[in-house]
C-alpha cells in the first residue's frame, strides 16, 4: 500500500490505471475469446451427449413397450382365430357343420397357378454395362506381374 501512495519522485502523476496499449490488448482479448470458446465447447458437447443419452434411454424404453405390445397383439390374433371362438362365431352368424364332401375326379389338367403380381417379385438383377472401372482394369493388368 505504501508503494501506491508514495510513488517515486519524478514519475508521472498517477491516480489511474495505465491506458491500453493497442496491439497487446487486442491479442489478449482474442486469447480470452478463444479460451472462453474452447472452455465452452466441451461443456456444450457434454450437455449434448447427456441429452442424447437420455433420448437413447427413452427410445430403449419405447422399444421395450412396443415389443410388449407386439406380443400382446399376436396373442390377441391367436385368440381371435382360436377354434372355440371360430365355432362360437360360426354359430352366431348361422353357419352349420358341413356335410361330407363329394370328391370329383377329372382327367383334365388343372389350371396354371396364378402369376404373382410384378410388384411382389424381386427386381431384375442389375447388369453391368460397359467396361470395368479404370482401377479394376489397372489391377487386372497388374495381376500377371504378381
Amino acid at each position, binding site marked *: 500500500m505504501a508503494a501506491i501512495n508514495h510513488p517515486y519522485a519524478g514519475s508521472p502523476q498517477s491516480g489511474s490505471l495505465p491506458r491500453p496499449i493497442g496491439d497487446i490488448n487486442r491479442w489478449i482479448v482474442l486469447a480470452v475469446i478463444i479460451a472462453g470458446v474452447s472452455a465452452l465447447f466441451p461443456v456444450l458437447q457434454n450437455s449434448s451427449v447427456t441429452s442424447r443419452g437420455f433420448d437413447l434411454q427413452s427410445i430403449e424404453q419405447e422399444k421395450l413397450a412396443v415389443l410388449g*405390445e407386439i*406380443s*400382446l397383439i399376436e*396373442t390377441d390374433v391367436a385368440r381371435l382365430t*382360436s*377354434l*372355440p371362438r371360430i365355432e362360437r362365431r360360426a354359430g352366431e352368424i348361422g353357419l352349420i357343420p358341413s356335410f361330407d364332401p363329394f370328391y370329383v375326379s377329372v382327367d383334365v389338367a388343372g389350371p396354371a397357378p396364378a402369376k404373382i403380381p410384378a410388384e411382389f417379385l424381386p427386381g431384375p438383377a442389375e447388369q453391368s454395362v460397359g467396361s470395368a472401372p479404370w482401377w479394376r482394369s489397372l489391377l487386372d493388368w497388374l495381376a500377371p506381374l504378381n
Partner: protein
Amino acid sequence: MPQSQALRTGRVLLPAILFSLFATLVVARLVQIQVFQHEQYAAAAHNELEATNTIYAARGSILDRNGHLLATSVETWDLYISAREWRDSLVAAQAANTISIATGLDINSILDSVEGIGFGDVLIARDVPYETGLELIEADVEGLITLRNSARSYPEGDLAASILGIIGTDNSGLAGIELFYEDVLRGEPGRVIYERDTAGDPIPFGLYIAVEAVGGHDIVLTIDRHLQKLAEEALDAAIEAHDAKGGAIIILDPNTGHILAFATSPRLLYSELDLDDPEKVRLLRNVGISDLFEPGSVMKVITAAAAINSGAVNPDTTYIDTGSVIIEDREIKNWQDNIYGEQTMTEVLQRSINTGAVFMAQEVGVLAFHNYLDAFGFGKPTGVDFPGEATGLLRKPGDSDWSAVDLATQSFGQSISVTPLQMVMAVAAAINGGRLLEPRFVRATISPEGVRTEIALVVVGTPIRPDSSAIIREMLGKVVMESGYHPAEPDKYTAGGKSGTANVAVNAVYDDTQIISFVEFAPLDNPEILVFVKIDENQDLLTGTAAAGPIAAALLDATLTYLNVEPDGRRYVEAR
C-alpha cells in the same frame, strides 16, 4: 518517510506450527489414500459406479403343425409396494384405492399386506396385465414399484393342455412339452454392465458392455389342433356314454411317427389348475405316456406279425380250437368260453381267439417270441419327446418268476403291461412296412431369426419285413371289412383293425372290470392314419368292438376327410 517493517514476534510461531502439522496430516492422508490405498479405493469406486442388469430372454412359443399358436408369452407386471413410502396412512389409502380400481384387488388386502412392515418392498400382485401396469405407471402411484415379467398365454384354452404342460413363476417348464423342451424354449438371458450415476441411471457413453439376450426358439408340434379337438371331444363323449373312468385316443401318422392328436382322460385343464390340490397335481402327468395297462387282444396283432414274419404260420395255416388249452396246470380259455373248431390264422384275428394266439406264440418259440416283443419296443421307452414315459412291464424267459403260462397269456395281451403309446407304435410298425419309429410330439423348431429346422425321422428298428407287414394289413382288413357289417368299418375308407377287451386285475384277481380298446388304420393298402381308442372300466361292459370300434371308425373318416384323402371305402364307392 521510511517504510515501516513488520516486527518479528513469537506469537506467529504457534499457529504456524499447528497449521503446518494440520497440513502435514492432510497431505499424509492424501498420500495414504491416493498412493498406498489407491487400488482399494479405485475398486470400491468401480463397484459403486458399476451396475449389472440381467436381460431376460423372451420364451419361445408353441405352435401346432399348421402354425396356429397354442402357447405364447405375454408381457406382464409384478407390483411391489415400498413400505417406507406408505407409512402415511392417507398416502397408503389413496394409492391402494388407485391400485384396487385398476387391478380389481381388494383394497383391504393390499393395505393388510403392507401393514406393520417398516421397510422393504412387498409383493402385492404378480402377472398383472400389461395395459393395467402401464395405466398404473402413468398414474404415478405413490410407493408403487412395477417390475417387468411375463406370463404364458394359451389362446386355445384347455386344448392340448396335457401335452403343452405348464411353467412356473420363474418361467421354467414344469410339465409336458414346456419341461421337455425347456432348453429350447428358454433362450439365453443377456447381461448389461454399465456405469451408473447417483440416481442409478446409466451414464451416457460411459462404460457399457452388453451381451444381448438370445430369445428362445419356437416349437412346432406334430399335433393338429383340429384333430386334437376332435379326439378330446370324442373321448369325453365316449366316457360319458359308456360310464367309464377314463381313457385315451391317439391319432398317429404311421409312416412318420408324428402324433397328430393325443387325448387322455383324466387330463390337465388350465381352467381348473390348482397346484395346492394333490389330485390336480397328479394330472400334470400324461396318462397316455406314464400309465400302464394290459392291452388284451390288440396284442394278437403283434403275435400274428411275429408268427408270419418268422415263417411259423401263414394266414391260411389252420389249427383246431377246443375252447381252451392247458399250460402247466393252468387252463386258458377263449372269451365267453367259445369253441370254434378248425380256424385259420386270419380267423383267429377275426374272432379274437385266445387259444389261436397261444398256438401262434408256441409256433414261434419262447425265445424268438420274446425277441419279437423286444423288437416291437415292449419293455422299454419309445423315446418320445415327452417327460415321464413309463417303460412297461413284462416277464421274460430267464426272469425268476417267468413260466410257460406267461408266453401263453402275453400272446393275447395279458401278463404284459404297456403304455397306450407303446401299443400304438408297435401296431404302426406291423402295418407300415415293418419300421418301428420313434414317436414325436415336435416336428420342427424355429429360431428367433426365423430359421426353421425340421426334426428328422428316427427308425428304431425293423421288427418284421415289408412283405410280412403287407400280409398283416390284409389280415386286419379282413377283421374289419370281410363281414357284411362291422361296427368299426369306416363309412368312406378301407381299413384294418383289431379290438381289445382286457380284464383288469383288482387285488390280484381278475373280475368284470375291463379296459377296452380298438386300433385301426386306413386306407388299407397305403395307411395314412392310425387311430387307437382306449376306454377304461366302462360300466356297461361293452366290448372293444362294440364301444371303441365305432369311435375309431368315425375318427378315421373325419381325419382322412380333413386331410383331403379321397375315399376308397366300399360303402362310399357303392353309394356313388
